[in-house]
């Protein structure tokens, strides 16, 4: 085969494997972080028995999920019931592939980008696969043939449709500033003109709110509200299939945090780093670490909010999405247009 093609395929395969490992490790340890932080917020101990400080708890959980019985309700639509968890899980993994984790580096004599796919329409890919996640949830609700599941699936579909608009509009502000759909260009623009969070603070708040809703996290977890719907769309699932919904939720969180850090907090940018004159390898390491710190902070915020704010009522959720976030996002676009015309960013 063509040597260039072979190199590209090999490079992509290595990157995909690495990214998958990063996501799965983050997902596993986020489940532990969530339980420990929630325990800390509620003045409890949390899981601390398996390994030092409970560090092996995710392993134990994984083994437990593997050995639980895989229940398939006899009245469920068999094919779709089995397919739905995968349809939730795959888009959650795909979206992360376009996030730049660091600046381009030179490795083994090649220029390597620290992202799996450098797509020209990067941000559109994020939106496209964010809208794919709803199918898995809606189908899980429908295929279970259970009233609670069905309600959860329908709620999820309407919630995702409502908040996608606000999410898209908050991203439009960023695009207007950067003048490009590529995530790397957006990061470079923020290096030159300051982070977007300072210029577009309302946009950032709208993005985070909509991202909470898109990932079905509290205070927007109405699709699986325990007090009303047992467990919503995944009521009938058990074992590994249930854990796929669970992992997809955390993978979605991870993706949302990566995108938030890239769009609004300068991605891998560290202010004043280029003035230190570090060797390029060390500088790149610091930048990747900075990106990891930013993502980690957002992940912590996710957990923090979950255990602080109670769940919305359904009408409050819809009112917030359509009557508050949408008009504010439109007003915010006016402000961004103003500063872009003035040439401030």
């Amino acid at each position, binding site marked *: *085969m*063509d040597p260039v*093609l072979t190199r590209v395929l090999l490079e992509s395969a290595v990157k995909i494997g690495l990214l998958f490992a990063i996501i799965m490790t983050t997902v596993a340890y986020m489940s532990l972080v969530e339980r420990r932080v929630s325990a800390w917020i509620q003045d409890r101990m949390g899981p601390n028995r398996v390994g030092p400080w409970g560090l092996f708890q995710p392993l134990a959980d994984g083994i437990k999920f593997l050995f639980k019985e895989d229940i398939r309700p006899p009245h469920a*639509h068999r094919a*779709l019931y089995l397919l739905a968890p995968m349809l939730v899980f795959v888009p959650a993994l795909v979206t992360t592939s376009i996030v730049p984790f660091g600046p381009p580096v030179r490795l083994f004599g090649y220029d390597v980008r620290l992202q799996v796919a450098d*797509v*020209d*329409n990067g941000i*559109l*890919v994020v*939106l*496209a696969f964010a*809208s*794919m996640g*709803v*199918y898995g949830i*809606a*189908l899980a*609700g*429908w295929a279970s043939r259970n009233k609670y599941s*069905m309600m959860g*699936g*329908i709620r999820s*579909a*309407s919630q*995702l*449709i409502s908040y*996608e608009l606000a999410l898209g509009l908050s991203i439009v502000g960023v695009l207007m500033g950067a003048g490009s*759909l590529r995530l790397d260009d957006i990061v470079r623009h923020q290096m030159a003109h300051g982070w977007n969070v300072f210029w577009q603070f309302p946009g950032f708040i709208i993005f985070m709110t909509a991202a909470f809703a898109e990932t079905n996290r509290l205070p927007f977890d109405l699709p699986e509200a325990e007090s009303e719907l047992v467990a919503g769309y995944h009521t009938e699932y058990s074992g590994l299939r249930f854990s796929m919904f669970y992992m997809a939720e955390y993978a979605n969180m991870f993706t949302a945090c990566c995108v938030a850090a890239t769009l609004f907090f300068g991605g891998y940018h560290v202010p004043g780093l280029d003035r230190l004159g570090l060797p390029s390898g060390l500088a790149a390491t610091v930048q990747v670490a900075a990106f990891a710190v930013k993502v980690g902070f957002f992940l912590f915020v996710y957990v923090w909010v979950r255990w602080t704010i109670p769940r919305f009522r359904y009408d409050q959720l819809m009112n917030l999405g359509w009557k508050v976030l949408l008009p504010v996002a439109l007003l915010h676009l006016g402000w961004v247009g103003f500063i872009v015309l003035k040439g401030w960013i």
Partner: protein
Amino acid sequence: MPLLIGLILVVVAWTVIRAIAPDRPWFAFVPVALAGAALLALFYPALATVEFWAGLIGFVAILSALLVVIHPNPMMSVLFLILNLFCVALFYLMLQAEFLAALQIIVYAGAIMVLFLFVVMLLNLKAEEGLRIGTGPQRWGALGLGLLFSGMLFWAIQNRGRLAYFAPESTGGGFGTAREVAGLLFTRHVFAFEAASILLVAAMVGAVVLAKRRLG
């Protein structure tokens, strides 16, 4: 080509064995997996050609489009339509129209099909008995129009050299990028663009008015 035809034959064989022995899934799975692996090992250089992928995606596109029409369960029809729209997006990608591909997934596979799914879920349609491809005039009309359309397609493919419109050189360098599309939309076609948006707003207001009146 042999790889593509072989894979299609394997899929057909799988379907047939599943239909003959539905209660033993591994019965079909083992020989099919072996045959598929053997084909890939024999013809692996074909994986790097455009023809193979165009053929594979085209096959999936046609198969899913057929299943949209003939599947008895409306929910499965919706899902096959989504698969079909994805195949079209992949075709756009192969033609270097990345922006169009992303929009295809966002607008059609993402937004519009969610509404389809939503409606089918709410109406709770049952799987119909057997096929239901219309009767009488509908069936013959559909057949005639389908034949007419495929005739036009064949004519266009046969004469593609003579029609300047289909030549790849007729498009500029930045063809299909967001910048190019937006530039045209806001300069040359701005009237059509604004007219379409007014039409959409009018339709939306009309829908709200009708729905509210029915609620009382």
